[in-house]
């Protein structure tokens, strides 16, 4: 990371010595800037955590009140000085409260994207491109086979299937933070006004979104209902629950999964998904490349995901580009951990 001279790589993740802070560190550190609340980015045990108000609230819900020694809320656009570095947070469009982090030392501007997407999302603030010299980007879906800009069609397919099989329950696997609420909001936007049923792992975060003013309509806990009687209903659950014993109590359930990975057939078949829904909270190939162009950066660093193709593409445009191969990120969508553990 030579030309982003105030940043370096350490086993805990990306570190800024001049400001003495880490970004989304993988292990406990003295001072952490957290981009968003997914568990591969937001971990417990740091001395001092700086993040948006929403991210801090999500961390408290998931990790418990004492998740850090000290917390400090930052609003989008607020300026903050840490050591010799000017720091500000900007919307990333990934989940509620998600932020890109802009850092400047007077000579160089570096932006760390965190996870982000470019598609409109009714449940969070939209991504804002920030002009910079060095852009540190994710590349979860950094291959041109990934294009997921037809979310409305996917919701229409879900509703069509629900009409076609009124005697079957539709279980939609979705990560508890972000994806679940987005799927619900999209269903509401498509005019679906029947109650939507929630797996227990979804309840707290849906309630949090509603307190933030995101309207999700009539939500009912599955736990309070007889599962065998939910024929024809839509149920949102963690992806891991699709294959659980839990799912078998529903009448002839249709297993749907809302994820960018559903673009690849083997991923869907492997999980026994019958109705793959290509709905992603990460930038697709077009989103990644468009964003790199819009930041007008000279150098691209790729934190995690399918880095090779994006690096090749950026170099082809005359940009400097390097993969960082950071380990430990990306499992919020790719994992198989059931129920509560993650998103």
């Amino acid at each position, binding site marked *: 990371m030579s030309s982003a001279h105030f940043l370096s790589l350490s086993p805990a993740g990306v570190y800024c010595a001049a400001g003495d802070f880490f970004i989304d560190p993988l292990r406990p550190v003295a001072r952490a800037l957290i981009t968003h609340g997914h568990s591969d980015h937001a971990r417990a045990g740091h001395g001092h955590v700086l993040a948006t108000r929403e991210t801090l609230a999500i961390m408290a819900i998931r990790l418990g009140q004492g998740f850090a020694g000290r917390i400090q809320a930052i609003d989008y656009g607020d300026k903050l000085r840490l050591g010799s570095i000017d720091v500000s947070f900007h919307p990333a469009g990934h989940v509620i409260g998600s932020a890109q982090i802009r850092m400047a030392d007077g000579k160089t501007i570096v932006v760390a994207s965190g996870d982000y997407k470019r598609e409109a999302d009714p449940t969070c603030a939209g991504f804002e491109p920030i002009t910079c010299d060095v852009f540190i980007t994710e590349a979860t879906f950094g*291959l041109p086979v990934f294009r997921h800009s037809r979310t409305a069609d996917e919701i229409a397919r879900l509703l069509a299937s629900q009409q076609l099989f009124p005697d079957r329950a539709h279980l939609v696997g979705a990560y508890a933070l972000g994806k679940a609420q987005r799927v619900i909001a999209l269903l509401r936007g498509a005019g679906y006004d029947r109650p939507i049923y929630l797996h227990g792992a979804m309840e707290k975060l849906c309630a949090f979104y509603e307190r933030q003013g995101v309207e999700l309509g009539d939500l009912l806990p599955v736990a309070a209902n007889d599962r065998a009687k939910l024929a024809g209903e839509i149920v949102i659950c963690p992806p891991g629950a699709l294959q659980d014993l839990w799912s078998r109590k529903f009448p002839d359930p249709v297993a749907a999964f809302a994820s960018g990975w559903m673009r*690849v057939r083997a991923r869907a078949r*492997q999980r026994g998904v019958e*109705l793959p829904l290509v709905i992603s909270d990460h930038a697709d190939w077009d989103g990644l490349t468009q964003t790199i162009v819009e930041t007008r950066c000279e150098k691209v660093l790729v934190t995690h995901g399918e880095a090779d193709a994006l690096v090749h593409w950026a170099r082809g445009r005359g940009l400097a580009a390097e993969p960082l191969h950071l380990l430990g990120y990306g499992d919020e969508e790719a994992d198989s951990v059931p129920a509560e553990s993650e998103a």
Partner: protein
Amino acid sequence: MNQFAELLDRLAFEPSRLGKLRLMSDFFRRTPDPERGYALAALTGALSFQHAKAGLIRGLITYRVDPVLFELSYDFVGDLSETVALLWPAPAENSSMGNDAPLLLSDVVRGLSATGKLDLARNLAGWLDSLDETGRWALLKLITGALRIGVSARLAKTALAELGGKTPNEIEEVWHGLAPPYLDLFAWLEGREARPDSSDPAPFCPAMLAHAIETKDFDELPPSGFSAEWKWDGIRVQAASGLAANGRRVTRLFSRTGEDVSGAFPDLTDCMAALPFENFSLDGELLILRERKVQPFSVLQQRLNRKTTSAKLLADFPAHVRAYDLMRHDGEDLRALPFAERRGRLESFVAHASCERLDLSPLVSFVSWAELAEARKNPAAFGAGADAEAIEGLMLKRRDSIYVPGRPKGLWYKWKRDPFTVDAVLMYAQRGHGKRSSYYSDFTFGVWRDEEEGARLVPVGKAYFGFTDAELRELDRYVRNNTANRFGPVREIIHGESQGLVLEIAFEGLNRSSRHKSGVAMRFPRIARIRWDKPAREADRIENLQALLKETGLGGSPAG
């Protein structure tokens, strides 16, 4: 084409057999002729045209997409047709495509049989431009001859049978006289016309299959009620012969599923056609014999992998049939006779035939299950002699069993020998293909060997199955989080005395190999268990494998 593509897409995601049947019979019901007939032909592998080569498709896509991005995408997706379907650039909105009549499956089938190689590339590009992603995927699967969607020809015929209230075997009986788009077949099934005439002189008799035996079964089965024979490691085939209406003799070789494989084995088919019987159906195992010795499956595989059957190939890999059963002879259907009686007929058939490419699968005599267990452990000492390495276990057949198509319960059992196992350390991983594509699922593993600088891991094999779906995702994550180095698509996994993942590998045998650094090559290795608990330094050593080679002789017989 759109409806057909939608059917394939849904079949590919439908896990249950019943669900697949419902999707297919629905499709046959609501799709008009001849589209449904061509779809049936596609599903049963009955369409014949020159398949498009992978090279042609790569050429089309790399003309439109950066070759490096294509290769990286292909490595991830693991399937050429799917990669190209996803990457194919959508034609501009205002192009004329939207106004054309939608592309039909029959257009494609006719186009394929009419066009030469040069036109194929141009036609294909045009077709791809006119389809959506699912359509492109289905088209590419079709024209590369790789429609693997979990539907066998038998299942498609079963769906068809449901349509007309018939049994699958009734379909099977008329099938070989018919050709796409099967207008007469659908007319019969829908009660509009009489049963199509198909006095096929050499019909396929649906094969009888065995269940795997379980330990508890032995308590209930009387040894005296059963015959035992070796389970040969070749290809189960059926030879059928008969006289056509014009007096000409028709002889065919079928696979276990009824696929006509005569073309791949002209040497054997000619021999069967020359037998001194005009009318028969014979069940057996296709094997390669050299100087009367049965060659291991790896040798047969070398013949199977060739696209053309040259004279040299036929001479180097002579195909034989080792006969198991006789279903039809001289106009008599023997299937309703008990096995013991059919066996008698078979013995005299083979003796009479006196053909050097046809012999009898010998019976293994035994009085108790314990004695048979000994034979299973050591076939060489129980009559198999030098052929032991081509044996994968035993077949147990009830002496009074009639020949029932399919896999009836309680009549025939297979008793495979136990695999060998070794604890090895994961060294390299690559992304897989098919069901495992896009995950790291091809694993190279090694065992310890003492070298000058101390113990080092030496690769001894590759495995890409044996694990559950959930284990596959755990392994994929392990690979991504424990990568030491990247060599193109290959990841080197952290391994050493104090770090690394131990895999329990099961395999069927061991061969000496000069091509492998370790000097050994495993047959049919797969991951039996993931030993998350076992430290890498406690994995097996190369001496364990070398001892196995010595103990069992080249190729190895089971250790039990």
